[in-house]
């Protein structure tokens, strides 16, 4: 399942790096504590969070996440968006809650 498939099926708003939507999503991670995400998430995960600070870009880049989804309509700071564009980390916004978006992506991933 690619990022493009997920974004289309769940009607997600991709804010940057639309040229990278061919990335394959291998799993998901939900977390708001950066230390936990650094320790426990895996490469290829789509990371779902409510943090919007620019540090999320460094974490996603370091861990080679497929993308970062900001839940419940959280808008990133300007400098976060700028950094994500520079680093090639797709930033996605959804109005869905973390539970809902995780549930829907889980269903897409387990069915494919």
């Amino acid at each position, binding site marked *: 399942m690619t990022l493009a498939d997920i974004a289309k099926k769940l009607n997600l708003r991709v804010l940057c790096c639309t040229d990278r939507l061919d990335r394959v999503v291998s799993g998901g991670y939900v977390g708001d504590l950066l230390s936990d995400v650094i320790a426990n998430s895996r490469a290829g995960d789509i990371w779902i969070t409510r943090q919007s600070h620019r540090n999320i870009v460094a974490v996603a880049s370091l861990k080679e996440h497929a993308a970062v989804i900001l839940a*419940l309509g959280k808008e990133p700071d300007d400098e976060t968006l700028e950094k994500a564009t520079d680093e090639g980390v797709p930033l996605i916004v959804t109005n869905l*809650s973390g539970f809902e978006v995780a549930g829907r992506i*889980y269903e897409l991933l387990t069915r494919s």
Partner: protein
Amino acid sequence: MKLGDVIEILEAKLLAGNERHRSLDVKTAFSADLMSDVLAFAKAGSLILTGLTTSQVVRTASILDAAAIIIVRGKIPAEETLKLAEELGIPLISTRYILFETSGRLYANGIVGCVEKIGGTANGAS
């Protein structure tokens, strides 16, 4: 779904609470590590899914009248947190799954988000 089914689906352990809690009806859930978000968005009767194990999680759940707390990644809270959960009557469950998998398994079994989308859904505005 009964809380007992939730425990089974998540291959989890009931760390605080009693057998009576297993028959509790649950329909909704909220996943977060930020208690501020739990306070702003979670609803009464919901499951709170989190990676935090502090006593603040228990107090937050109590304030909100949450159905139960599900702690992910196999974390076990400190003795005083468990004691507080018993005192306040909040069932506390521990699963080895990560928050994504925990959310996904419950969603796949029919649990829905206690807030699906934002827009006038914060507490008190409903």
